[in-house]
């Protein structure tokens, strides 16, 4: 069927012992867009795991994830040549911004994954942007995965073991005076996105955030992954994962 695929692993790399990058043969239709995800049967957990697409070419799809529990642990043990049971691409995408706008990408932790894909797209569209990326500490920082290109990078860690000693949101806020931003695309932990949303609201900045949630179906049918919005409960898997930050009722 169109969105249920068995896809082969083309290559695997493990960074800093717990971050896994997989390239899969690209058998997806339609062609994925930044912000969308794959819903993957890991073999280690009962339900599928939603993992952001971190990049895509004609031939391959890239995913990037942290080993956190039994599901991602089992998924990390897969080898080149083996196959994965996938539903995707699913979810909505980051809206492609107006060329005239000052764009900032803000990634916290594994929120890096979908923004790597977006950055590559912006580079190929020859659009300017700034990339703000923060992680807990040096051991969690994957800045070497940022795509090559002519854009400004700002790196931070919470403990200062690499880059600036700030959270990525604090860093973004401090640079606002010198680094004008009209529109933000962000992904990361909920509390980080909540803090970022408040700053964007106070500074009248447009922002789109990618939310995470435990998901069962990933297709919008079970209503299990909802988040509260000003327009009622919305499904993170189908109405999102990308939402206008003003729509979310942050808790």
């Amino acid at each position, binding site marked *: *069927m*169109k*969105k*249920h695929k068995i896809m082969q692993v083309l290559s695997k790399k493990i960074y800093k012992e717990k971050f896994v990058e997989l390239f899969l043969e690209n058998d997806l239709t339609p062609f994925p867009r930044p912000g969308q995800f794959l819903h993957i*049967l890991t073999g280690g*957990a*009962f*339900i*599928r795991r939603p993992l952001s697409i971190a990049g895509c070419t004609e031939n391959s799809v890239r995913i990037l994830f942290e080993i956190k529990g039994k599901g991602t642990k089992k998924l990390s043990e897969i080898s080149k040549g083996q196959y994965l049971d996938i*539903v995707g691409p699913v979810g909505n995408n980051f809206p492609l911004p107006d060329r005239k706008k000052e764009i900032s990408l803000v990634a916290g932790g594994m929120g890096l994954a979908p923004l790597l894909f977006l950055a590559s797209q912006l580079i190929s569209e020859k659009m300017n942007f700034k990339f703000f990326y923060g992680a807990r500490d040096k051991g969690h920082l994957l800045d070497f995965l940022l795509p090559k290109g002519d854009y400004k990078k700002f790196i931070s860690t919470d403990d200062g073991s690499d880059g600036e000693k700030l959270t990525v949101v604090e860093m973004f806020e401090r640079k606002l005076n010198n680094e004008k931003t009209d529109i933000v695309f962000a992904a990361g932990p909920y509390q980080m996105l909540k803090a970022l949303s408040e700053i964007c609201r106070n500074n009248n900045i447009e922002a789109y955030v990618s939310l995470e*949630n*435990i*998901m*069962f*179906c990933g*297709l*919008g*049918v*079970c*209503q*299990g*992954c*909802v*988040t*509260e919005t000003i327009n*009622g*409960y919305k499904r993170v898997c189908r109405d999102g994962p990308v939402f206008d930050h003003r729509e979310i009722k942050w808790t």
Partner: protein
Amino acid sequence: MDLKQLKIKLGKLVLDTPVLPASGTFGYGDELQDVTDYKFLGAIITKTLTWEQTQGNPPPRIWEFENGLMNSIGLQNIGVRCFASEKLSCLKKLKKPIIVSVGGKSPEDILKCIEFLDRKNGISAFELNLSCPNIKTSKIISEDPRSTFNIIKKAKKITDKIIIAKLSPNVRDICETGIAAEEAGADILCAVNTYKGLYYDWNNKKMYTGGVSGSMIFPMALRAVYELYQKVSIPIIGVGGISSEKRALEMIFAGASAIGLGTFLIINPELPMKICKFLIDYLKTNHTNLQSIIGLYNEKRQKETDC
């Protein structure tokens, strides 16, 4: 694959195959076409609809176990009137019997849904969700035989369409509610809905209640169908933790005329195809037909054979 031999009649309800989706895991009916091949499904079934649009329970709504799932969706849905105007026409194009699941906070709400939908063309049957464990403001109808009897009796007066009673397994003896449903005129039983469960979240130190599904409930669901088959003469749709072709056949052996896939339709969208293939192979190898193997290994059939 020649599906013709899988055609089965559940009273007046004629199904192309005995494999059905289970309400609640199939959206409004047409949304899973990108992942599963509908030709292996005997009917379309909607998520439970209520008279008014229902917002559902606050998140979180899903909790995972090693071999199962707990949910507390709280019947979030667009309401029957919106369903009739926006969704029903798309479902008719699928050319399958349409089963509409109806529920509500009170018996009156459920009857209002049936009365309204009865006037619409294209619906084959109503499944009365008498057993959602996640509506906190109301009592579960099918936990009480008397209430079960009353609502089905009233529903039968309103509509000539097929009535399926979806039963709760959270009872002392499911046969009591099954018999009550049959006596009130239910055409088909659907057993079972989810089991009441509790989940402890170590991260936020909270406990959550919900309905449990998945392979962990299969033995209990199988037993419920087995016991019902001995006590009622209307057909039974067996639902609950069917995770493979063999489990589907076991459910039929226990007494189910058709089987419902919920959790595992999502986990393995190819399961309907695999079950159909397996059933066809089984029937061929054993020179039998589908009707003959319903309840085949149930004590009731075994006794009949002895006589």
